């Protein structure tokens, strides 16, 4: 069994799986249930001056019959009083001393920040997360993403917090910004101990085609909501890697965004996150999902011979490079395994209409594979013209059978040459220009 214990910028937890600041982290009751289920930490739903919420707060993006591949909300920070929240944090810490409880805060003035940081410390919180990310409701009042989108403002507020903080401070970053590393660097400059990302993305999930009102609907109107859930994972991974690779940031990262299982978590870790935070998946399935997250991560680490999570963290960061450094002479082609092919011909139509026209539909006898897949006599079957195949992967992506179409590396016979190399060689007159595709 690998060691899953975590020390994140000084915040210790039995495992790296934390409940993200949101509806599942709203109360002591939920915290007890979360820790009972096996979560290692919890970032309390953001505490600030009391607010009022609307009815109708969430909406979802479904795909086919899969519910909630994306999720959006217009719910604000905690609608409970700061007194109740800090009291319950103290109660939870008393019962779960070795679990991480982090107070998420969002207030306005320097005095308020000082007051709330001190109250969090007094309540026994293990750390503080600064919510600079909510894209709705709070930003109109100069908080949330209104802060996160302006690195200089974020830097100033973070430095106010650092003036009084005696526990680790995590700055939560908004993705609603052109370059997330600018915000991460600001956190670093202000002396923050860690960053967490991503917060939710500005969104409208869908429009009712009878009323023309988007969801969630509040008396015939809607508003821009914060988007999260499995569909945002690629965006979050990209931003996490950008921060992890940035030499000026150099802060521990808590990864957030569409994490629903151990595999997602492991990918975030490979790209530099040392803990991960989960909200939407818990809203969908409950706290119980952490059991397979820890079990699956453990099994995975064991299978790789890794003794702790730290051996995984950051392994993939350097394997993302600028496009101009990729090898232009790398060649791969699609190969179809006719033993497992079921004859759906999705590869054919995808290549024909959506890519590079490198697959032919031919009579089975022309291909020489007997009756061919699909069991229909005379039914044409797909065959890749390897000389023309550009190796784009599309056919293998649409193929509904695992391992039926594989992308196979073929020798190009040429030494590796990146775009940068190419431009240099071209300028030096060492090679002729590569002719454009016909």
């Amino acid at each position: 069994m690998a060691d899953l214990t975590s020390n994140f910028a000084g915040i210790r937890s039995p495992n790296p799986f934390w409940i993200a600041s949101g509806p599942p982290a709203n109360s002591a009751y939920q915290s007890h249930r979360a820790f009972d289920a096996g979560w290692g930490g919890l970032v309390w739903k953001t505490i600030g001056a009391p607010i009022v919420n609307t009815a109708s707060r969430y909406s979802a993006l479904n795909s086919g019959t899969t519910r909630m591949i994306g999720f959006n909300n217009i719910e604000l920070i905690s609608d409970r009083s700061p007194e109740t929240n800090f009291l319950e944090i103290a109660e939870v810490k008393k019962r779960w001393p070795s679990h991480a409880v982090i107070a998420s805060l969002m207030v306005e003035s320097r005095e308020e920040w000082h007051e709330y940081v001190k109250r969090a410390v007094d309540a026994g919180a293990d750390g503080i997360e600064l919510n600079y990310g909510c894209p709705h409701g709070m930003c109109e009042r100069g908080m949330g993403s209104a802060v996160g989108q302006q690195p200089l403002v974020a830097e100033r507020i973070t430095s106010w917090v650092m003036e009084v903080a005696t526990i680790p401070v995590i700055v939560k970053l908004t993705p609603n910004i052109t370059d997330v590393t600018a915000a991460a660097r600001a956190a670093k400059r202000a002396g923050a101990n860690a960053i967490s990302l991503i917060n939710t993305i500005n969104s409208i999930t869908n429009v009712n085609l009878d009323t023309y009102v988007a969801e969630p609907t509040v008396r015939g109107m809607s508003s821009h909501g914060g988007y999260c859930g499995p569909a945002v994972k690629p965006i979050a991974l990209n931003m996490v890697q950008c921060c992890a690779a940035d030499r000026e940031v150099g802060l521990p990262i808590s990864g957030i965004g569409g994490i629903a299982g151990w595999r997602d978590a492991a990918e975030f870790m490979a790209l530099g996150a040392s803990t991960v935070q989960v909200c939407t998946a818990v809203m969908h399935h409950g706290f119980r999902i952490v059991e397979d997250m820890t079990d699956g991560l453990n099994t995975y680490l064991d299978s790789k011979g890794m003794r702790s999570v730290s051996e995984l963290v950051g392994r993939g960061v350097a394997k993302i490079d600028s496009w101009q450094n990729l090898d232009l002479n790398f060649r791969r082609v699609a190969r179809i395994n006719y033993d497992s092919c079921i004859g759906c011909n999705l590869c054919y139509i995808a290549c024909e209409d959506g890519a590079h026209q490198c697959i032919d539909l031919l009579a089975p006898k022309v291909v020489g594979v007997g009756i061919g897949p699909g069991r229909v006599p005379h039914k044409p079957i797909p065959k890749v013209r390897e000389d023309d195949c550009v190796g784009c992967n599309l056919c293998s992506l649409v193929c509904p059978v695992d391992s039926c179409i594989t992308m196979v590396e073929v020798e190009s016979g040429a030494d590796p040459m990146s775009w940068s190399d190419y431009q240099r060689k071209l300028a030096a007159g060492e090679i002729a220009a590569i002719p454009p595709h016909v």
Partner: protein
Amino acid sequence: MTLKPILTAEEAHAGMIDIQLPMSPMVARVEANRCLFCFDAPCIKACPTGIDVPAFIGKIASGNETGAARLILEANILGASCARICPTAVLCEGACVLKDRDEKPIEIGRLQRFATDYVSDLGISVLHPPKTRNGMRVAVVGSGPAGLGCAAQLAQLGYTVTIFERAHLPGGLNTHGVAVYKLKPEFSVNEARLVESLGVTIRCGVEVGTDVTAAELQRDFSAVFLGVGLGGGNRLHIDGEELPEVLDALSFIEQIHLSKLHDVAVGHRVIVIGGGNTAIDAATQAVRLGAKRVTMVYRRGASQMSAYDFEHALAKSDGVHFSYNAVARAVIGVDGHVVGLRLVQTREGRGGEIETIAGSEFTEPCDMILKAVGQEKRGAALLKIFPGLTVDGRGVIERDERTGATNIAHIFAGGDCANGGREVVNAVGEGKRAAFGIHSFLSGVDAVPPMQPSRIGVAGCTHGSGLHDPIRAHELERALEEALTKGSN
């Protein structure tokens, strides 16, 4: 004893409820989303009317149920009844590629029912008569699936079509000869109304050859389509066959369709002779009408029955008994009523022929006997009406399979009278092909039925859509077996 109805109206109706459950919109959407939406899909090729199955399923998945129904009904005017009675396991669903991924095929039949029910329940018209007619008139003889398929297509091509039907209700076997738990007769009649809504006239109770002569047809119409189906049930030629409790299975089924269910007389111990799908329909409906013991008698073994496996299984689950390898020798009667059937055991001779086993005779008590040993071909009757028509040795009209053209220039044929007896969906497809054949003949343009768009651009394959060249799933399985055998040699 004279036969009487056994069940009350309530009991009889309870027994005849649909065996195929309709899909709720949610279930339909889930199932539709399971479809891979194959390009050049095998299910299209397996459909004798060439319905673009992945396209209509895609429309259900997208929430465009109306468009799905239109697509189905444009390809197959009887798409709603085919959704209920097609042997999908050996047609579209049998060809589904998901089977090759070791999964359940898409429930194409039930999805098709969902889409067609959607528009009929909401009263949405998806088909409309053409704005202009070409002025030419075509006569269609028979309002069964072939006739309706032909008439609907001709109407949409601009022809003025009159259907002549000798029965009082249109629909042919769909109205008179399908098990009620699959298709209610009024449903079939409504489908004929759909054809009428395209501008087709259906004249019921008019028999060609009697009420209207062939000469009149040929004088008043530019072309004639024969979709007259098959004749009455074949005879057994055994003693006692004339007793009142010995019925053709088809006339028993017709009674179920035309009378109230609780008025249909049925025996307590019923024997059904035959091993085909009609025999099964008769046996399962006898059970549903209250018969205590129903036995099917078949002259060969279970594996040689021509009934589909799923029909055979249905009869078994209904508690029908089977007496294989036995033939009827004589009906035993007392006081002019059936009391039993004398049978003899059979075995297969070396050449596959059936021989009876001496001394193996036995008697099966019964009070009703239903004969389902095939229908008469109508060749002889047709020759009297249309002298000069070429009919083969079986009594089946000879015609060009692609166009339905017979040896007489302006006479076309399709359905059971031309194929010897196949599925409803085959008849609809043949009627539709003949409509294009007639259009070709009358307009002089080369009118081939539209190819599935998915077939365009395919290299090296001459075979078209299911409409041109349907392949049945069991034919696919056989082809696969052959390919494997060849591979191992």
